[in-house]
């Protein structure tokens, strides 16, 4: 990763133009060329330095539903329950965390009704109570990952 890669990461987390030649327009601001910018983005995607490049959608405003959920999984059942929870396509990510509530996952569905239904299915399938932590307010965070 060189100086230009860093500038791309720091300055292009938002504001990519909507225009006929957006890479050319963005490249000008970054002090590089259109083709170089495209190459850099492709390389950083291939290397895994970038997870994605493109529009970042707001799930709820698209009509979908999203929630953070937690389970208290008995340690001896952890792997089995992880496998069951992960088998639901509605589970977008799932993390083991150091706490009595030790499994935290994000559910994403196309409608709020599907979210409730999936929650109940996970409870049935695991025999555990799902603690639902839906977002009540979202506070603005800047584009703050700087390298």
């Amino acid at each position: 990763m060189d100086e230009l890669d860093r500038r791309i990461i720091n300055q292009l987390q938002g504001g990519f133009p909507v225009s006929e030649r957006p890479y050319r327009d963005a490249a000008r601001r970054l002090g590089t060329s259109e083709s170089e910018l495209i190459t850099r983005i492709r390389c950083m995607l291939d290397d895994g330095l970038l997870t994605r490049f493109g529009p970042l959608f707001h799930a709820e405003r698209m009509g979908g539903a999203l929630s953070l959920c937690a389970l208290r999984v008995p340690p001896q059942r952890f792997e089995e329950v992880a496998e069951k929870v992960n088998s639901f396509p509605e589970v977008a990510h799932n993390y083991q965390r150091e706490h009595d509530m030790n499994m935290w996952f994000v559910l994403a569905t196309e409608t709020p009704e599907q979210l409730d239904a999936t929650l109940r299915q996970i409870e049935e399938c695991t025999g555990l109570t799902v603690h639902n932590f839906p977002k009540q307010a979202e506070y603005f965070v800047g584009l703050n990952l700087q390298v």
Partner: protein
Amino acid sequence: MADTDMHDVQDGIPADLDRRLVLATQAGLPLHARPYHWLAMELGVSPELVMDRIRAMLDDGRIRRIGVLPNHYRLGYVANGMSVWDIPDDIVGEVGEQVGALKSVTHCYRRPRHLPDWPYNLFAMVHGRDRAQVLEEVASIAALLGDRARAHDVLFSTRILKKTGLRIGG
């Protein structure tokens, strides 16, 4: 528009165009000099219409932003702690704004308490190069909040069990 037999058309906009645009771009924007023209060809509409719809989705917030999404782990931010705070309901809004504005915080939400075991109503994700750095950041948030926070905790992730990102069907 005679060929769009399966789509309703209103004001010249195929009814499900926005949805098809989401499907066509959720994996990423084409890495071609004219990415919106590329999408337009794929979707069988004009480039102007594609750009108009994307601008409309930016304006109403369905698209948060267009740009690169860095991979925290690969960039050295390997520790992530979910800090959780018990803030009185009448001030959680202003406190949330303040915490969200901090450089180390990448997500900041108000969520419900689950009493009696879970008194926390403000969740702030803190990233750092290691655990010590995350704990330092959490300590500085605690100092900033003073007695406005009645209690807090930080939950470190020990393992990613699944990470597929958000996708809609189709």
